[in-house]
C-alpha cells in the first residue's frame, strides 16, 4: 500500500479503524522521503527516530482504547523557524546552524496534544526572507514538479515535501506570501490564517505584526484538519493572539454550497505584469464559481500599487529589531575572529552569520527607523497600512471573498532571479496586502501552465473568514477535481 499517496483524512480513517498503524504510516512516509528528498531537498532535519517513537506511542494509546484526535498518528513536517525543543531549529541560517531551542512553540505543543507525528524540520529562505527558497544557507529546495525550478518561498520546504508526497501535511509561516506563493508554485493547498488566529509563540520572528503560522495540505479538507489543531487563543504567551469564532470546528463545518456567495475580482490584480496563463486560469476559476451559483463581479483595490513599499518598510523595520538578538552572545553562531573586542564580536558574528538578503533587509529596516527618516518611511507606512485595511473593509461590504492570482507567474527556474532583489520582491505583489491587512488567504491549485507547472489561485476573506474560504476552496476542488496532486518523481 502506498500510504504516502493518501490524504490525511483518508489516513485518519484507516488509523481510526486500525487498518493501518501509525508506525506503518510513519515508515511509509519516511521511505518516500528517503527515496525522493535527495532530489527535492525539502528537509533540513529528518527526525526519523523521534517520529517513529512518537508513532509507537500513538499506537499504544490507540490500543488502550483512548479517544484520539483525528490527527493522531498523522505525519506533519514543520518549517525550520518554528521552535521544537531539543531539535535543531535553524531558520536556514548559518546564524542558527546549531540552535536547539530549550522550549516548544505553542503550535508544536498543540501538535503534540493531538498526537501528531512530527517528521522533521523543512527548508526555507533564511529567516523567511525570500520567495524562492534560494536564500537558504543550507541548500536549495527544488520544485517537485520540475526539479530545475524553485518551490517558491519562504516556506518552500513545507510546500515541496507535501507536493512530493513526503508527508501529507506541513506547517509554514507567512509574512508576505510565504505560505501562499510556494503552495501555488507546488500545486498544494496553503492557508495563511487571520493575524492572531494561531499563536506566534515560538515562531522565530521575521516581522511580528505580519507573521502568521499556517497549514499546508494536498486537499482543502486536510488543510482544515491541521488548521483546527493549531488555532487557539494563547493569552499567556502571545499578546497578539485572538479568540477565533471557529476554533477547532472548521473541518466539521465544511460546506461547499456556493449559492449566493459574492466573490469580488479586483481589477488591479489582473493587470500588467500578471502572465496570461495565470490570469486565464484564475478567471476560469471565477467562471467555475459563477456556474456553482456564486455572484462574481469586478471590484477595485487601487492601493495595491503601494503594497510593496508599505510591506518592505514595515517588515524590514521590524526585522532589523527582531534579528538584533542574533549577536553571537547567547546562542547560535559566534565568530572565531573577534579576539577580545565586544564590538568586533557583534559585527563579525552578524556579518558572517547572516546571508546577503538578510543583511539587505536589516540595513533597509535600520534606515527607515533611523533618526530623520522615521516619519517619511516607517510612520507613513503605518498610516498607509491603516488605509489598506479600510480599503479591504470597504470591499467586504459588497463581497464575501476576493479572488486573485497568487503570483505573477508560475514557478521559475532556479537562479533566474537571484541577482536582482527587486525582481524577486515584485513577485510578492499579489500576496503582501493580505498580511498588511491581517486577513486570511487561501491558495489552492486551479490549473497548469503550458510547461505543466501548477497555477494557484488566492481567495482572500474577512477577518476570521477561514470557514468561508475553506468552504469555497472545497467547492472548487470538487468541481475541478484538482486535489491531492502528488508530483511524479
Amino acid at each position, binding site marked *: 500500500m502506498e500510504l504516502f499517496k493518501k490524504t490525511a483524512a483518508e489516513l485518519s480513517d484507516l488509523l481510526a479503524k486500525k487498518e493501518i498503524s501509525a508506525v506503518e504510516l510513519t515508515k511509509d512516509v519516511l521511505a518516500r522521503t528517503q527515496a525522493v528528498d535527495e532530489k527535492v531537498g525539502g528537509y533540513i532535519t529528518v527526525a526519523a527516530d523521534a517520529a517513529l517513537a512518537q508513532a509507537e506511542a500513538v499506537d499504544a494509546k490507540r490500543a488502550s482504547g483512548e479517544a484520539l484526535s483525528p490527527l493522531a498518528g498523522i505525519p506533519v513536517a514543520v518549517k525550520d523557524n518554528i521552535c521544537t525543543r531539543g531539535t535543531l531549529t535553524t531558520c536556514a541560517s548559518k546564524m542558527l546552524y546549531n540552535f536547539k531551542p530549550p522550549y516548544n512553540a505553542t503550535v508544536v505543543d498543540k501538535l503534540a496534544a493531538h498526537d501528531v507525528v512530527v517528521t522533521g524540520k523543512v527548508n526555507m529562505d533564511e529567516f523567511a526572507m525570500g520567495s524562492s527558497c534560494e536564500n537558504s544557507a543550507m541548500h536549495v529546495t527544488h520544485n517537485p514538479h520540475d526539479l530545475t525550478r524553485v518551490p517558491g518561498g519562504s516556506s518552500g520546504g513545507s510546500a515541496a515535501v507535501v507536493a512530493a508526497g513526503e508527508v501529507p501535511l506541513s506547517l509554514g509561516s507567512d509574512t508576505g506570501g510565504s505560505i501562499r506563493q510556494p503552495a501555488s508554485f507546488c500545486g498544494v493547498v496553503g492557508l495563511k490564517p487571520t493575524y492572531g488566529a494561531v499563536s506566534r509563540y515560538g515562531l522565530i520572528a521575521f516581522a511580528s505584526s505580519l507573521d502568521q503560522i499556517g497549514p499546508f495540505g494536498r486537499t482543502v479538507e486536510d488543510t482544515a484538519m491541521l488548521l483546527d489543531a493549531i488555532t487557539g487563543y494563547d493569552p499567556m504567551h502571545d499578546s497578539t493572539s485572538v479568540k477565533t469564532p471557529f476554533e477547532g470546528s472548521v473541518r466539521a463545518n465544511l460546506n461547499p454550497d456556493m449559492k449566493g456567495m459574492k466573490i469580488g475580482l479586483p481589477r488591479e490584480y489582473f493587470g500588467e505584469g500578471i502572465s496570461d496563463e495565470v490570469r486565464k486560469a484564475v478567471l476560469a476559476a471565477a467562471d467555475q464559481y459563477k456556474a456553482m451559483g456564486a455572484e462574481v463581479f469586478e471590484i477595485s483595490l487601487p492601493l495595491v500599487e503601494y503594497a510593496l*513599499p508599505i510591506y518592505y518598510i514595515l517588515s524590514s523595520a521590524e526585522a532589523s529589531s527582531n534579528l*538584533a538578538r542574533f549577536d553571537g*552572545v547567547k546562542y*547560535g553562531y559566534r565568530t572565531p575572529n573577534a579576539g577580545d573586542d565586544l564590538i568586533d564580536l557583534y559585527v*563579525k558574528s552578524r*556579518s558572517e552569520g547572516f546571508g546577503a538578503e538578510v543583511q*539587505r533587509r536589516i*540595513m533597509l529596516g535600520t534606515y527607515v527607523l533611523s533618526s530623520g527618516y522615521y516619519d517619511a518611511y516607517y510612520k*507613513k507606512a503605518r498610516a498607509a497600512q491603516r488605509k489598506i485595511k479600510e480599503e479591504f473593509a470597504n470591499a467586504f461590504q459588497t463581497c464575501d471573498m476576493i479572488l486573485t492570482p497568487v503570483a505573477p507567474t508560475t514557478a521559475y527556474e532556479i537562479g533566474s532571479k537571484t541577482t536582482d*532583489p527587486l525582481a524577486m520582491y515584485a513577485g510578492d505583489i499579489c500576496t503582501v496586502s493580505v498580511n498588511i491587512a491581517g486577513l486570511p488567504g487561501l491558495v489552492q491549485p486551479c490549473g497548469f501552465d503550458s510547461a505543466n507547472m501548477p497555477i494557484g489561485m488566492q481567495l482572500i476573506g474577512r477577518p476570521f473568514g477561514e470557514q468561508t474560504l475553506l468552504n469555497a476552496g472545497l467547492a472548487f476542488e470538487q468541481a475541478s477535481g484538482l486535489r491531492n496532486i502528488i508530483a511524479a518523481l
Partner: protein
Amino acid sequence: MAITRQEMEHIAVLARLDIAGERFDRLADDMQNIVGMVDKLQQLDLGDITDVINTERKNALREDVVRQDYTPDELIAPNAPDFQAGGVAVPRVVE
C-alpha cells in the same frame, strides 16, 4: 531619497554589520534600488491619517504570578557559544 555613503556607514554601525570594502559595493546599488522602490510611498497622499496607537485590540495582560520552569543548565548552557560560571561569557566589557 538617495542614500549617501556616509548614511550607509552610519546605518551599518547601528545594525552592527560590516560593510567595509567590497561588501559596500555589493550592497550600495541594491540599497539604492530598494530605497527607490519604497520611495513610491511618498506619492500616496494620506491626509491626516496617522497610527500613533493601534487600538484594534487592547489589554493583553497577565496576572502577577510567578512560575519557574527552567534551570540555567537547560535554558542557557546548551546553546551558549561560551558558558562559564553559570552564564554566557563575552570579552571583558569595560564600562
